[in-house]
């Protein structure tokens, strides 16, 4: 093997191991892993199953809110959310029909919402403004219309 080949391989492995360590540390020590909630639900009985029988926003602490939301073609329920700046919002989500995506532009919120599963994701909203919420997984002819906003005051 050439010397330069050895150097290149060493650098390659070093870089890759670095990536593994950093992503692993962030995911498990800092709790930054991607959304992976593991609760199941009957997709045809979402409306009768707590907490989705009462979708909406509840204040659960100082600057802390819980949003229970259902996704269905081609809308989000509830569809207008308002929180004060600096709040942390915990979303609990499920789908009543097909697979949807839950993405909030300019934040790290990005989660798949699948029928049969409850998904959870949290985000702290620091900056006031209107945040666009959209479905980012193809769900049918009206997919591009499936959107709402989160207002941070």
């Amino acid at each position, binding site marked *: 093997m050439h010397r330069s080949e050895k150097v290149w391989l060493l650098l390659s492995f070093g870089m*890759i191991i670095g990536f*593994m360590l950093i*992503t692993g540390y962030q995911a498990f020590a800092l709790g930054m892993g991607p*959304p992976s909630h*593991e609760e199941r639900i009957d997709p045809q009985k979402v409306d009768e199953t707590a907490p989705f029988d009462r979708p909406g926003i509840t204040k659960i602490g100082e600057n802390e809110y819980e949003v229970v939301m259902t996704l269905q073609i081609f809308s989000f329920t509830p569809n207008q959310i308002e929180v004060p700046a600096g709040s942390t919002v915990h979303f609990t989500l499920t789908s009543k029909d097909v697979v949807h995506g839950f993405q909030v532009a300019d934040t790290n919120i990005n*989660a798949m919402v699948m029928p*049969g599963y409850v998904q959870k994701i949290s985000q702290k909203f620091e900056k006031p403004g209107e945040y*666009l919420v959209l*479905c980012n997984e193809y769900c049918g*002819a009206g997919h591009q219309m499936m959107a709402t906003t989160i207002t941070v005051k």
Partner: protein
Amino acid sequence: MGIATEKLNVDRRDGRLVMAHFYVAFIALAVGGLAGLLQVLVRSGKFELPLGIGYYQVLTVHGVVLGLVLTTFFIMGFQIAAVSRTSGTLTNKQRVIGWIGFWLMTAGTIMAAVMILLNEATVLYTFYAPLQAHAIYYLGLTFVVVGSWFDGAAIILAYSKWRKAHPGTPSPLLTFMAVVNTLMWIVATIGVATTVLFQLLPWSLGLVDRVDVLLSRTLFWYFGHPLVYFWLLPAYMCWYAIIPKIIGGKIFSDSLARLSFILFLLFSIPVGFHHQLTEPGIDPAWKFLQVVLTFLVIIPSLMTAFSLFATFESFGRSRGARGLFGWVRELPWGDARFSVPFIGMLSFIPAGAGGIINASHQMNQVVHNTIWVTGHFHLTLATAVILTFFGISYWLVPHLTGRKLTKAMNKLAIIQGVLWAIGMTFMSGAMHAAGLLGAPRRSSFSEYGGAPQAAEWIPYQIAQAVGGSILFLAIILMLYIFINLAFFAPKGEQDFPVGEVADEAEKAPMVFENWKLWLGITVVLILFAYTIPLIDMIENAPIGSKGYKLW
């Protein structure tokens, strides 16, 4: 010492089989390219589809026809040609198996295409259960996969025959590479075949009521990631084993090339969860494990990059080039067979870097399902791979049809490559940028109720339309060149270049062809990465979903 090649030309009968594959591939390029043009125009917000055609219908055409049909037909055709050239003409039995494969794939393509055109299958090529397409769509795609297994069988049989006749000698590099890619393809397609045959088909026929959505997605992505390596490895075959001959140099290291292909076989399959990182119902530890395995598959690509540039540099220096980069000037830039794939190689540098970002676990959350991802695979598949396939066509098509690539066509081919690079810079660049701002992929034009954030994306969408239109011109040029080479170019002998190994390189050890060992490790890795999460998924499955037709 070199390995004696039995025949320098691909036999005419094998050539006809290969060309049949190429005709379908280039028809697919025309149809899929047109669909792509329509998409970028719609998404610019300045154009609407006529006759009630839906955006998502066009998107399904684009994905199926370019992602599955063009690629599978071209790759199987190219691999058959490579095996026939380096391991000898196929036997009649092998060739018949190849033809059965071709017709099965063609019939399947027509079935799927009819269903898409009837608007019965607007579920994109990734299926998206519980969206439910017509059973004939699923059946058609099954035929495409099963047909590709027949093609694969012809390749493996031809290799076994060579293997038996030459004990103790490493097989020809191109044949070895085609066999690795075929084996990987067969192991990977088991996943998609399983979800189609046991879940989607019975469900779309009404034999069962419900489908397990997560299981179906998991089986799809078990196939969906090795699929991208199935596209990439034939390009690597060209880069490792053909380009050195075209520039007049030698293959840097035969063993390194074989080792990198074996690593692809081992690590491209147990990594599908990195397409499902933001999904519920999968344990985060298993997601991370597959992220680690995904990182390992970067290694063979970095080895490839080293090997290629080592080939280029040693060739340039053998011509007396001096200085750090003097060898660059020695490369045959005027030869489209080199320069067009070279554009592809360059594009793989940002493409690979983007891929590492996508695979990086939590960082994936920033880009998942945004148009960034679309920008990414238009650099990998739609530039690095496809420009290499075009580069192969420039000599392989005339080689098979007994014609010659003329100077005029060579010039046009270079223009085509440059046009592609310009169009893709606009389109993919704008896609990456808009994706970082949050613009979703697989979405028709939308102002999202006048949201200011969505308004920021529109200039990028116009840039995508400009880039996409330039790419469409490049596709027309490519089709013109293909038709010329297939039917009109002057008769003559066009060489099928096969690289020779550098004199100082060591002989490849026979352990590379210990398939029991490599397939064994492949299976162990797959079982390791998938068994526990799959059992968990099935044991704790929620009640399944009924089918929806929402388009």
